[in-house]
């Protein structure tokens, strides 16, 4: 028994020593949470980026902790709410406002007063910077810049006698080209779909924006009750109306069961997707020719815009008045947002980073026309607004009505009226408690 206790004590001491060994006691430790946990391909390069900073430092030591994308959001949200957040971490850009209002973020504008050249602010997209700003002050920085584009399969285009010059730019062209690309076998089974406005990352709010409409007005009140809203929703469904519901469901189910993106699986000729699909196609070693372009817009007065969500990077104020860590976090933030590191991060994670020059130089160096084309579209990206009474307005709150419409349970008018009533009820209830 005695031997067992001694054995455990030695083991415990060894683990404790190893754990302590990596953190220098003479430096101020800065906690940084990222999404490259041990075991992922991005882990080693991310660690190298952090190590390079640490080696350049006499005062600060950054301790990076990686969580998988799927775990990260619960971890950071709970840490922020319990005021145990890291000094520096990633979050979502579209709701920076809520955290800034709650007082859990440090005001980055304050740092810029003493250190005006600390960041190349002109290198970040204006639209993204607006989301990082609350009450005139900067509370976060855009870290990545997700973009949505139209992917088109050139091999399929060639097969039906189309060329890159035929890539659609308007909704009517999209319909005409898509119909040439549909393939149905003798049993009436869809083998290939030219395009579907509900597939991939194409969303109703994305199409609305192109038509100059939105879910909410400037005051955050739900709209959805105009003929324009009905027409756009109806257009989405009517796009493939020559097929029966059963044909479309069977095709969609087959895509789901295959477990691969329908465009990457060469089952759909054109699809709206994020830049993430490009990484998937590259990593899968796909051998078909494809390109990306602007998402087609309505024929009359269409607006060139795409839903461009992105990560923010934030300095968390846990209310403990730790000025040393706060300053260290600012130093590391400047490093992470610098040209070289942003470029390195883009290569490591396959993300489009927020730094414009870093990304355009990277596209030139890699001789990557797809990346270069996507970077053009980032200029036209717009994030979704934060609605306090319905933070998940595009997800949980909208999807049931949207699905009811697509499955034919509701007409466009009914679905939009029901969704609007739900938003109004949520708004009323939120106002009653705030």
């Amino acid at each position: 028994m005695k031997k067992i206790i001694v054995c455990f004590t030695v083991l415990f001491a060894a683990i404790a020593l190893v754990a302590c060994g990596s953190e220098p006691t003479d430096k101020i430790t800065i906690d940084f949470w990222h999404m490259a946990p041990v075991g992922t391909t991005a882990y080693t390069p991310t660690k190298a980026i952090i190590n390079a900073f640490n080696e350049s430092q006499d005062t600060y030591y950054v301790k990076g902790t990686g969580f998988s994308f799927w775990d990260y959001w619960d971890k950071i949200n709970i840490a922020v709410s319990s005021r145990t957040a890291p000094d520096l971490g990633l979050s979502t850009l579209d709701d920076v406002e809520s955290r800034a209002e709650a007082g859990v973020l440090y005001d980055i504008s304050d740092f810029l007063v003493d250190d005006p050249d600390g960041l190349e602010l002109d290198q970040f997209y204006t639209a993204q910077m607006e989301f990082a700003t609350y009450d005139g002050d900067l509370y976060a920085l855009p870290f990545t810049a997700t973009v949505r584009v139209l992917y088109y399969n050139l091999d399929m285009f060639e097969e039906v006698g189309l060329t890159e010059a035929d890539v659609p730019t308007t909704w009517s062209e999209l319909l005409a080209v898509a119909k040439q690309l549909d393939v149905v076998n003798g049993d009436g089974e869809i083998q290939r779909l030219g395009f579907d406005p509900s597939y991939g990352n194409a969303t109703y709010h994305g199409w609305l924006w192109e038509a100059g409409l939105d879910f909410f007005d400037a005051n955050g009140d739900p709209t959805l009750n105009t003929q324009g809203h009905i027409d756009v929703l109806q257009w989405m469904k009517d796009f493939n109306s020559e097929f029966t519901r059963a044909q479309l469901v069977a095709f969609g189910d087959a895509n789901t069961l295959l477990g691969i993106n329908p465009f990457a699986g060469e089952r759909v000729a054109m699809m709206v997707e994020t830049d993430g699909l490009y990484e998937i196609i590259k990593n899968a070693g796909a051998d078909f020719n494809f390109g990306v372009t602007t998402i087609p817009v309505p024929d009359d007065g269409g607006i060139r815009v795409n839903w461009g969500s992105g990560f923010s990077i934030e300095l968390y104020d846990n209310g403990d008045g730790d000025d040393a860590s706060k300053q260290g976090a600012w130093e590391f933030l400047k490093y992470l947002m610098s040209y070289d590191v942003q470029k390195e991060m883009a290569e490591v994670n396959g993300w489009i980073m927020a730094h414009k020059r870093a990304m355009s130089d990277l596209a030139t160096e890699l001789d990557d026309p797809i990346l270069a084309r996507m970077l053009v579209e980032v200029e036209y990206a717009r994030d979704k607004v934060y609605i306090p009474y319905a933070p998940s307005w595009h997800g949980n709150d909208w999807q049931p009505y949207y699905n009811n419409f697509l499955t034919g349970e509701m007409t466009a008018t009914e679905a939009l009226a029901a969704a609007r009533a739900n938003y109004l009820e949520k708004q009323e209830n939120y106002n009653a408690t705030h």
Partner: protein
Amino acid sequence: MAKTITVRQMKKKENLAGHLFAFPWLFGLIVLGIFPIFMSLYISFTNYDMISPMEWIGFENYRILLTNDSLFWKSLGNTVYHVAIAVPLSIFVGLFLAFLLNNRVKGMSVYRTLFYLPNVVSVVAMTLLWMWLFQPNFGLVNALLDPIYDLLGVEPLGWYLDQDLSKFTLILMGLWTSGGSMVIYLAQMQDIPTTLYESAEIDGAGWWHKMIHITLPLMTPSIYFNFIMGLIGGFQVFTMAYIMTNGGPSRSSYYYAYYLFDKMMADNAMGMASAMAWILLVIVLVVTVLALKLNKFVFYMGEDS
């Protein structure tokens, strides 16, 4: 000189030792159990959104949920439907399996293990498996039922993708784990003295009479136990719907616990979610107290009736 110790001192020492030994458990109960429970009660009277400081708003969350939240009633209705069908059905299936497996057939232990096996499969894995089986277009269930569809001239069932069938599909799927209650039934069934059956046989009782007059009455304690546990668990149904249907279609499988989860995770309305949790506690308590009234129909062997 020998050190003396009074009984009082000894008792005190023993008390201290007892408390020390119980400390880890007491600590867990108070810090991890009682404190969060009462904290959630407090939060239910606030507008806590997980980031901003909480503000006291009295019974406003409860008022809103009960009088101005259509999804609250929809999700509660779905849950009551689930409990009302799933609980009796799982008791019936569990009993049926127990009757089947209470035989002296060769390899019976293998069958019992096989029926119990689904209980050791994680709910997530089980749900994903059944999603494939119930898939309307490609699933095995519809493939097997195809001749019947042809015979009746009807469209194949949409299962979890049909708003009229989604809840029932989840209930059917849940029956796969009836082996858990079966084990309890089987244990009690084998506890019934054989002398009762022998004397019944002498009196001329057949299989049916033995089951109705001996087996079932003597199994009421385990049926009752499974009934109460089923009621409590049924009101908390969540995982299967979360993975398989996302609460759909048309929120037909949007259960109470799912709505509570969304209130917290999607709407950041922790105060409202806490209020929902306390309303659920009251509902479960009331239903359980009503269910306890059925205790008079339960026959406990060895007790005076």
